[in-house]
């Protein structure tokens, strides 16, 4: 059966608002899960640190930024559940680069954005470093 991940309604809305506003650039951020409930209940929206001329089709999160944010999240009983980013004017499918950078066990939410706002929203995961990527369905709770 397909794996499922639950995201709180408030968090879900915050992600979509950020990515919609980021258009025509890619927006990105960190998904934080509540260690008790397993539900994604918060995000850290991140400034896309890719170079300006690459921002329309790339995103990058600085490792040291991630390091600081994950320590801060742990102090609140949260942990990094995965990452989200948008594909302006492109489908919500993983690119070669996306797959290459996937960390096993982390959730990747990809959102297609365009002139008319939010398009397709897809979740992906893989279990093993060289393993296959599979789809994860996302539930708003």
């Amino acid at each position, binding site marked *: *059966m*397909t*794996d499922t991940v639950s995201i709180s309604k408030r968090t879900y809305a915050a992600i979509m608002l950020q990515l919609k506003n980021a258009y025509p650039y*890619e927006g*990105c951020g*960190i998904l934080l899960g509540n260690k008790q409930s397993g539900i994604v209940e918060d995000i850290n929206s991140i400034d896309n640190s*890719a170079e300006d001329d*690459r921002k*329309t*089709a*790339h*995103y*990058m*999160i600085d*490792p*040291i930024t*991630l*390091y600081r944010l*994950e320590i801060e*999240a*742990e102090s609140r009983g949260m*942990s*990094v559940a995965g*990452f989200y*980013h948008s*594909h*302006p*004017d*492109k*489908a919500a*499918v*993983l*690119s*070669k*680069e*996306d*797959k*290459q*950078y*996937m*960390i*096993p*066990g*982390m959730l990747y939410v990809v959102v297609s954005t365009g002139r008319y706002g939010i*398009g*397709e929203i*897809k979740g*992906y995961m*893989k*279990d*093993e*470093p*060289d*393993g*296959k*990527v*599979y*789809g994860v*369905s996302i539930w708003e709770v």
Partner: protein
Amino acid sequence: MNVYISATLRNFFGKNARLETKASSINDILSWIKDEYPESEKVLFDENGKLRSFIRIYVGDENRSSEDKWKTSLSEDSEVLLLPAIAGGAPENDSIIPEERRKAVAFDDKEIERFGRHLMLRDIGVKGQKRIKAARVVIAGAGALGSAVIQYLAAAGVGTIKVVDFDEVSLENLQSQVIHTTRDLNRPKVASAKDIVRNINRNINFEAENTKLETENIVDIIDGYDIVIDCTDNYKARYLINDAAYLCDIPVVFGAIYQFEGQVTIFNLNGGPCYRCAFPAPPPAGLVPTCAEGGAISPLPGIIGSIQANEALKLIIGIGDHLSGKILSVDSLYLRFKILELEKEKECPLCGAHPSIKGVQDFDYEDFCGLKQPEEEIPIEGFTPEELAKRIENEDPMTIVDVREPHERAIQRFPNAIVIPIGQLARRMNELDPEQDTIFICKQGMRSILAINTLREAGYKGPMFNLKGGIDAMKDIMFSHEGAWL
């Protein structure tokens, strides 16, 4: 020394956030980690032993990920951080046609004129039209759906079109298979497909495969092509096409019709779901009739086939939104168009996380689709049309049960048959005489097998026989007491 493990990598380090080690350089730390946490090796290093592209090693806030910085010895109180680099990007070229093949294409003046109405569209233009000409497409099935797909892809300018079909044109095909005409009767379907493509554009490289899809030939037929359009009408061909296309990494534009309804979707595109994610197993043999048995309204395959051709062109050009991960469902009777979500299944035996099908040879398609007679079951006895005709002529005592639906009987009545639709059989089995032979008939001899199995399961003990090939096969039988039986 203290080594910090990012929360994103901790599952490979026994969930530890911090490790204490006596090692004093990054090299020593990495080899110590390999010994202590063997699980972590595969997440840190690729198969060539190189640090994976998404792993970063920091000392304090200084990036020391490149190997030449690993020998330096570190002070006792420094903190080493093992972090992931989070990056990615939108797919650069949405087209399934590689750029070098597009660049190799040129147009002459005639082609500029012929494709003018594509060239003037901003989203297609010269780039898109070149991709169309560079494309190599396999169309499986030259029937009703294939008719629409073949004509539109040829007209749009697809450079290489391969059509696979084993069948010959028959009169009943002409109601919906619009590439075939009366003068094509009894010719191979691929021959009339070739004629139509030639008449549209002689520059198209047309390849005809007058053959049935099997495990032995499917990979050879589709390997090296950019896209497969599934216009077949049976489950075995669909699973074969899906599996081979997934293994050869080729997307499939799938279409299917039945009576007034149709479906279109895309499988195997960029890690999207496959046919097995959507339909893990076929229905029992005989339960769902094909169009040959169930019928379909004439323009419906034109609608569905045109959408398939449109989806294929969008994938080739690399524009718009498409039906990967979605099924378009069309009800032509009440004009309802719906789009349903289709998820990729983690447990899919073909494209899931732990696949069991690694080659088409691994899988018994005949058995899976119920085309084999199961050994443990009692085989079903049957009569050929000639044998049944003889029994009718001899006036042998027997009961003939017609399991067809009322509207089918209206086309052609079977004389002296009692009528029991399949759904009512078990309930009405006391109407049958177990002392007497009972012969079951339907249009093509498949539903009658289902009828016999249903009665067997319900405990009916009398002798039961199937009319092989159904009433269709009886058309040519002549009875001595009549000029013609029909």
